[in-house]
Structures are given as structure tokens and as C-alpha cells.
């Protein structure tokens, strides 16, 4: 077994703006003092990091020279028709002008950390690392220590940006297994509105990347952000990442997560209500199959009064796959009049599938309304029979029930065009799965 912590310390980013060095130094020291989680580490109890340690992801991501044929295929794959988005595409971490369509938008500035002007640097420095806590999340520390650049999205005060920003983080295999560090900082000034779609994808080949992707969302008073984080990578792509949000007074965050499984995939989703009256809708779907894993740890911190949270996560776990869902809601003593709801429902479509679900409520205020619940079920035999009794083949009926289970969330997306993009992708996945199952039976 390799020592991943020491190995990661060997890797030093090059060509970084000097003003990031402090952040990097702190990340490095925090990472250095951390220890690899074991079965006894509560936050990592059900997710092993063996794949990361054994995979020797020692190379760095390199700029790829793609053929025009490959570019066309990738463009078709990640383009979401009807979304009419401003599109930024990164291939193995490098910005791809060929795949991007960066139409300028009033009210929203997008810039690389390395290309930021003085005022922008000031804003970045004021917010970077304020939402993602490196001492609590060790892979945020790693992200800090590897910080060479990042993407900064700045939405100006009272600007209503209607065109969604679609950021695609694409990976393609390199000769040697490699690591990839990504950082996104979204700062929403008071009263602003925007939509950001983060889309992780890969080409069809077997991947050999480990991505550490940290996103920070900072919402000023009354700001509204609709955020999507879609993980649709090939199953050999490793990902450990997080989305960390801070919400000021009356800010509203609508966040949707979708994760296909992989050898190792772990997402920490953290929302801090830091101003009175903030609201967060946090929804998500995870769909591991084969021998994949996926782990969503969500944590909502209610630090101020009159804030609300509505969280719904659903999972369909197939074959020998394993999913972990940990949903924590923490109500601080000051957070009176909090309303928080958490629901997690799981569908196991095979006898060998596993889900470890744990809703956690920690309440230190006395005038709050909180509910939480988790369920685990199998495909409903009676519903299957009902569909079959109308002439629908059993395997097709299984696909209908599995997709039906998640469609309630997909159908309620703020951007229905995204739902239209996702539905065939997911439905194809269930079809493949059923065909495979029928063949092995």
C-alpha cells in the first residue's frame, strides 16, 4: 500500500500566481497533518480509499491535443440542447477554446485566477477558502495544496443573468494515471441571480484520472443561485470533491446533484445558512451499478434564525454496487424558527446492492421544525405485475419503475431542458443494466 499523503505532498504545482501561495502553504500543512481515514473514521466509515492508494495517480494532468473528430464527438456528448448556455469546457483541467462558446454576458465576469485583475484578485482573496473548510475536509486541504489556478465567476450586484453558465469538466485518459485538481469560486453579489451547471464527463474510453474538484458558492444577501452538479463520468474515473456554500440573509440556493457511480466517488455538500431567512433546496440522485461506489455526505449548518432547508436525495442501487448517504442537519442555538426537512429514499434493484444511509439531526435551538426520514425498498412486485399485465415486457417494466423512482426529481428541475438531456442518458443506463442482468440469469 502506498502512502498517498506523502506522495501527494511530492507533487507541487508549477506556474502559480504568487498571491495563491499562502492558501497553498496552509493547505499543505493541513494535508500533512491529516491521516488517511480508516474504517474507524466516522466520516469515511463506508468508503474505502484503497482505489486511490493503489491506483498510483502520480502524473499531472496534461494539455491534450485532440483531433477534430474527437472534438466533434465530445462536443455532441456534452452539449445540452435547448439550454442556450454560455459554455466553458476544460479537458483534463485545461481550457478548451475549441469546445467552448464563451459569449460574454452582462453582469457576470468569468476569469481564471491567473488572469484576474487587481480588483478581481481582491475579491477572490476575500472569499476563497471561506466556504470550504480545509481543516474539516481533508481533500479540500489537498485541493488547497495543489492550487495552481481556478475559475472565478463573479455576478454583479442586482444583476439577473438569465443565460446559464455551463462548465464542463471533461477527462480523457493519459498514458500514466494522473491527478487533476479543480477549483471553482462563484461569488454572487447581493440581489444577483444566476444559474451554474457543473458537468463532469469523460470520453468513452476507460479513464485513469483522479479528480479533486472543490467548488465554493458564496451568496450575498438576497442572491439567488441555481446550481447543478452532474457527475456523468465513465466508471473508472475517481472523484473526491465538494460543494461548499455560504448563504447570507434571504439568499436562495437551489442545488441539484446527480451522480453515476465509479470505482470511488465521494462528494461532500455543505451549506451554511449565515444570514436570517436564507433558503436552500438541495436535491440529488445517485445511481451506482456494477461494483461501483458512491458516497454523498451532506451537511446543512443552520447558524441563523428563520432559515429553511428542503433536502431530498434518492438513489437506485443496482448489481453489486454500494451507496452511502449521510445527511446531516445542524441547528445552532441561535437558529430559532428553522424549518428543515430531509428525505432520503433508496431503491435496491438487486439482492447484492447495498445502501448505508444515515440522516442526522443535531438541534440546539428549541423553536424549530425539523423532519427527516430514510427508506430502503426493492422494486415493487405488484407494480411490475401491473405493468406486465398490460403487455409490457418485464425488463422494460423494471426500467420504467427505476426511472420513475427518480423522475419525480428530474421532472421538477428548474431547467426542464436539463431533464430532457438527462432522461435518455439515465434510461439507457437502466436498459443496459437490465439486459446485462437478463443475460447473466
Amino acid at each position: 500500500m502506498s502512502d498517498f499523503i506523502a506522495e501527494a505532498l511530492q507533487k507541487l504545482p508549477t506556474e502559480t500566481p504568487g498571491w495563491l501561495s499562502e492558501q497553498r502553504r496552509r493547505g499543505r500543512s493541513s494535508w500533512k497533518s491529516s491521516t488517511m481515514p480508516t474504517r474507524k473514521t466516522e466520516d469515511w466509515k463506508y468508503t474505502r480509499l484503497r482505489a486511490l492508494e493503489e491506483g498510483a495517480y502520480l502524473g499531472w494532468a496534461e494539455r491534450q491535443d485532440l483531433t477534430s473528430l474527437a472534438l466533434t464527438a465530445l462536443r455532441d456528448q456534452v452539449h445540452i440542447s435547448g439550454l442556450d448556455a454560455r459554455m466553458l469546457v476544460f479537458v483534463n483541467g485545461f481550457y478548451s477554446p475549441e469546445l467552448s462558446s464563451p459569449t460574454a454576458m452582462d453582469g457576470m465576469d468569468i476569469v481564471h485566477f491567473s488572469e484576474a485583475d487587481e480588483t478581481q484578485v481582491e475579491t477572490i482573496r476575500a472569499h476563497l477558502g471561506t466556504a470550504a473548510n480545509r481543516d474539516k475536509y481533508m481533500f479540500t486541504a489537498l485541493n488547497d495544496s495543489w492550487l495552481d489556478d481556478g475559475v472565478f465567476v463573479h455576478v454583479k450586484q442586482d444583476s439577473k443573468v438569465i443565460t446559464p453558465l455551463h462548465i464542463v469538466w471533461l477527462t480523457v485518459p493519459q498514458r500514466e494515471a494522473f491527478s487533476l485538481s479543480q477549483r471553482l469560486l462563484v461569488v454572487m453579489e447581493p440581489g444577483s441571480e444566476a444559474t451554474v451547471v457543473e458537468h463532469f464527463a469523460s470520453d468513452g474510453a476507460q479513464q485513469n484520472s483522479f479528480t479533486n474538484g472543490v467548488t465554493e458558492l458564496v451568496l450575498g444577501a438576497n442572491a439567488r443561485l441555481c446550481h447543478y452538479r452532474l457527475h456523468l463520468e465513465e466508471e473508472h474515473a475517481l472523484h473526491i470533491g465538494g460543494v461548499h456554500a455560504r448563504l447570507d440573509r434571504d439568499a436562495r440556493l437551489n442545488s441539484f446533484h446527480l451522480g453515476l457511480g465509479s470505482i470511488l466517488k465521494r462528494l461532500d455538500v455543505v451549506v451554511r445558512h449565515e444570514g436570517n431567512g436564507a433558503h436552500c433546496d438541495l436535491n440529488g440522485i445517485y445511481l451506482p451499478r456494477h461494483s461501483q461506489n458512491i458516497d454523498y455526505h451532506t451537511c446543512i449548518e443552520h447558524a441563523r434564525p428563520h432559515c429553511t432547508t428542503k433536502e431530498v436525495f434518492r438513489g437506485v442501487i443496482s448489481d453489486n454496487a454500494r451507496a452511502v448517504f449521510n445527511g446531516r442537519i445542524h441547528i445552532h442555538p441561535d437558529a430559532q424558527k428553522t424549518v428543515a426537512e430531509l428525505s432520503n429514499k433508496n431503491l435496491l434493484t438487486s439482492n447484492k446492492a447495498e445502501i448505508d444511509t444515515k440522516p442526522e439531526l443535531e438541534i440546539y435551538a428549541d423553536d424549530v421544525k425539523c423532519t427527516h426520514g430514510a427508506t430502503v425498498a426493492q422494486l415493487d412486485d405488484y407494480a411490475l405485475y401491473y405493468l406486465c399485465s398490460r403487455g409490457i415486457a418485464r425488463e422494460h417494466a423494471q426500467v420504467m419503475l427505476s426511472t420513475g423512482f427518480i423522475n419525480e426529481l428530474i421532472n421538477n428541475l428548474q431547467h426542464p431542458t436539463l431533464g430532457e438531456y438527462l432522461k435518455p442518458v439515465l434510461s439507457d443506463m437502466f436498459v443496459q443494466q437490465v439486459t446485462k442482468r437478463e443475460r447473466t440469469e
Partner: protein
Amino acid sequence: MLSIKNLHATVEGEDILRGINLDIGAGEVHAIMGPNGSGKSTLGHVLTGREGYEVTAGEVTFMGQDLLALAPEERALAGLLLAFQYPVEIPGVSNMEFLKTAVDGMRKYRKLEALDSVSFMKLAREVCKRVDLDQNFLKRGVNEGFSGGEKKRNELMQMMLLEPHLAILDETDSGLDIDALQVVAAGINSMRDGKRSFVLITHYQRLLNFIEPDHVHVLGGGRIVRSGDKSLALELEDKGYGWLESEAV
């Protein structure tokens, strides 16, 4: 069309059907009545092949095929349809998607040209009108949040779209007010074409005022204890089931 010989079936180890014999010819309407627990619904589910409903003896021939050898979906494609007493709610699967998938499969099986979305939509809207169901029900999840009466109409709609050779209607009349009952009855009558057959499982004679049966059978203790014409239903309405059960023993 359907021939049932000495059918025995168990559910969870309990004998429910104990030797049913029944022949249904093309174009006939049979009513099956009987007290609660007499095996009426079980008969319907055994014929459509529900899991856990185990046939222990007997044979069933449907349109010349050994029905019991077929999977539920094959029975449906062969032209058998059971309108459920308790239709299942399936949130997340739209009624439209469900109906179109079923109709597509049936048309393919019958070697009919596939309907494009627009033609299907048109057809579905027409059928909605026939069963007096608002078109919005097409967009909702299958039976999701439907009232009892709406669910029954949705069953009827499936029958109209799938055009089975034999429809078994399991208490499609229960829980309906008199107006809804008339809509349902008119719907069933509109499907009678001299070739299609029906089995009406019912507790009440009142449905039979609107749909005249050719034969009435009374089920008791898992057997047909009495068969007759429509006057038998009236007699039952008058006397109840007690006198037949004592005869059956």
C-alpha cells in the same frame, strides 16, 4: 375463447380455487358474483399470472393456447386484460408514457403500424373523453393521487386502447356513484362487438342493469356453485348468498 377445466390454485399455501370449470365463448358476457373471500379476484389474478398465485391442478386454454404456460405480459399480448380492483399507483411514470408503451407493444405484436406521438396523443384524448376523464390525467403519474372512480376509468381507458379479446373487470363498479357507473357501463357496452368477451366480477346486481350478461355464475368456497342467466343475479339480490353456500357444502 376461454376454457377453464378443474382449476385449483393456492395463495400463500391456502387453497383458494378448488376446481373451477368455466367456458366462455366469443362475444359472451359472463358475470361472476359471490361473497367476499369466495375466490373471485383470485380467479382474475390466476388467469393473468400474478406471482405467488400458484396453480396446483387444472388447465386453461385461451384462444387455443395453454394460458398457464405464458408469462403475464404474453397473456396480455395474446389478448387477455384484467381491469384491476386496486390499480397500482406508480409515481414518476406518466400515465401517457405507460399507455403509449403498452399500446406500442400491442401494435407491434399485432403487426400493426406504430403510432407516432401525435396520433397516439389524439387517440388517448379521444379515449379520455369516452370515459369522462380529464386530459390532465394523461400527464400525471400512473394512478397517482387518482380517486377510486378515476382509477377505474383509467382501467377502462387501458381496455379501450389495448382492445383485448377477453376483458376481466374485477369490481370495476365498486365505489362508483350512479353517474360514474353509467359511464363505465356505457364504456364497456361500446366495446361489445359480438366477438369480444367479458367477465364482470361484481358484488352488485346494479351493474348488470346496464350491461346485460349472458351467463351469471356464483362462486362459493373456490367453486362455481350455481350458474344461470341474468335472473340469477336478481335472485341473489333478493336472497343473498347464504342459501347457495349451504347448498354448496
